[in-house]
């Protein structure tokens, strides 16, 4: 029996070693490029899942693997050390990385605000019976954002500033989006900066929107982008070009086919059917709205998010 155990252990060990050895890097095999993309399992990246199922990448000899790691924190390091060839990240995070001289380059727009107040995919919400009626009333209140010193607090401050409140008085606390509906309901925070699907869930439970932050920050704000490393751009410009074309086709297709977007959400998220039908979909233009990125950079600089000003020339395509 013991010998059997020892044998088994040895077999498992040997198996694990070969398994580790064979999980090789991506590369091109037979003219097809194996590409790993770091994404977040949220609505924003629906176009790339849709494009994958429509064959927009395969047509261009790209075999796509989507790595939906939890949170975006792993994506920028993953792209800069070539575990992922491409990644999806919000622009503030990309600008923070750029200002720290991490060699990355945005290649295509990722997701954009709808530009319509009250009908956007991100907003500051309060409980139905809250005394807070407008963005100005947020002055001095406790507001949850998913990441401190990032796009959430920047755009919320701008909403309050534009409404005539004091942006410096806001008390931001960090918590994950999924925790916000409960925190708001229990009164742990006065207001929450959320995105879909939590936004629709909170509204369905009687919550009220007080500021369409992305709309307030800049017209047609580009919120996030697909990006790659400067190294890949230099080594294999053809792959980057083909990937960018496929992304553009995916974005255009997704923007024109909201029903298919709602359907594909069921494959990589667990958002139930009712909520899938209710969520506000973002816009998916192909071009990064550079003026809006500049605005976010300036606002971020004002809030002290960057240690040194990001170089948009180097970051944007």
């Amino acid at each position, binding site marked *: 029996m013991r010998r059997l155990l020892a044998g088994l252990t040895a077999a*498992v060990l040997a198996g694990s070693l070969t398994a580790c050895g064979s999980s090789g890097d991506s590369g091109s095999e037979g003219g097809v490029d194996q590409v790993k993309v770091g994404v977040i*399992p949220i609505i924003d990246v629906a176009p790339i899942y849709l494009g994958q199922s429509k064959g927009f990448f395969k047509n261009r000899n790209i075999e796509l693997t989507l790595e939906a790691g*939890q949170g975006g924190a*792993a994506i920028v390091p*993953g792209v800069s050390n070539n575990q992922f060839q491409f990644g999806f990240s919000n622009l503030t995070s990309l600008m923070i990385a750029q200002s720290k001289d991490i060699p990355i380059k945005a290649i295509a727009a990722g997701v954009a605000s709808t530009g319509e107040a009250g009908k956007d995919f991100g907003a500051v919400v309060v409980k139905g019976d809250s005394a807070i009626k407008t963005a100005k009333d947020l002055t001095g209140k406790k507001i949850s954002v998913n990441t401190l010193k990032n796009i959430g607090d920047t755009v919320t401050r701008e909403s309050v500033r534009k409404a005539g409140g004091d942006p410096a008085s806001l008390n931001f606390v960090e918590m994950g989006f999924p925790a916000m509906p*409960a925190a708001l309901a229990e009164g742990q925070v006065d207001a929450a900066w959320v995105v879909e699907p939590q936004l629709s869930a909170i509204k369905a439970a009687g919550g009220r929107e007080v500021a369409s932050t992305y709309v307030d920050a800049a017209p047609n704000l580009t919120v996030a982008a697909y990006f790659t490393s400067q190294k890949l751009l230099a080594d294999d410009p053809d792959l980057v070009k083909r990937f960018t074309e496929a992304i553009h086709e995916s974005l255009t297709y997704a923007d024109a086919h909201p029903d298919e977007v709602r359907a594909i959400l069921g494959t990589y998220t*667990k*958002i139930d059917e009712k909520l899938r039908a209710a969520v506000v979909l973002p816009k998916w233009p192909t071009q990064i709205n550079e003026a809006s990125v500049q605005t976010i950079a300036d606002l971020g600089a004002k809030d002290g998010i960057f240690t040194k000003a990001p170089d948009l020339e180097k970051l944007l395509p």
Partner: protein
Amino acid sequence: MTTARRGNPAGDTVLLGVAGLAGLLLIIELMPRLGLVDERFLPPASRIMAALAEEAASGAFWTALSDTLVAWALGLAIAVAAGVLAGLVIGSVPALRALTASTVEFLRPIPSVALIPLAVLLYGTDLGSTLLLVCYAAFWQVLVQVLYGVADVDPVAFETARSFRFSAWARIRHVLWPTALPYVFTGVRLAASVALVLAITAELVIGSPGLGKEIAVAQASEAVPTMYALIVVTGVLGVLINLLARTGERRLLAWHQSVRGEVSA
């Protein structure tokens, strides 16, 4: 040990265990129904079970379950093999033991989760990340037990073996190993539970494939009943792994006095 003793038949223990579980389910069913907690955040047990049935009907769930089990088994196997080997070597050479003692005491308390940034840098969101955390946490459990086991060897028996000119290998095989074996099993049992905790944690935080990742996706998708359903699955896994480890320990060590003694007591 939870084994049945005289005057307390096994049937009763099982019955009580089932009753306890049923009571827990009833409480979870009633709390949201009575309005004690908001059912948006803790759905009643019946809805959690419905979500569980729905998950079990999907292929993605079984893939995630096998991913988690593979990560657990591989991580545990590597940790046990490395832990036993290192334990026997370090334990049988006093100089080596003195040399490594402070290092082991320094490395052992480092929580595996603190290594997440390192795991992500080295392996991204692949299985490797999970394995790193699992192996690190499980390794120390085994190593420390094996060190105790080796230290427990009867010096007279060891000296006797030496005077009978047993070879070094025979001394390990016939004196050291049988003494250390119960400790090894304790180490394996502890490591098995720790390995599961770390596998789920890694998947949850890093997003490497497995049940933990599915929990994170359910959470991000506002699919609260599904999230609880998956958490229930991890709990069941924990129970099964513990049962397996205890049964294995009893069966394989049936000859040893540490097990024999308890049964005849």
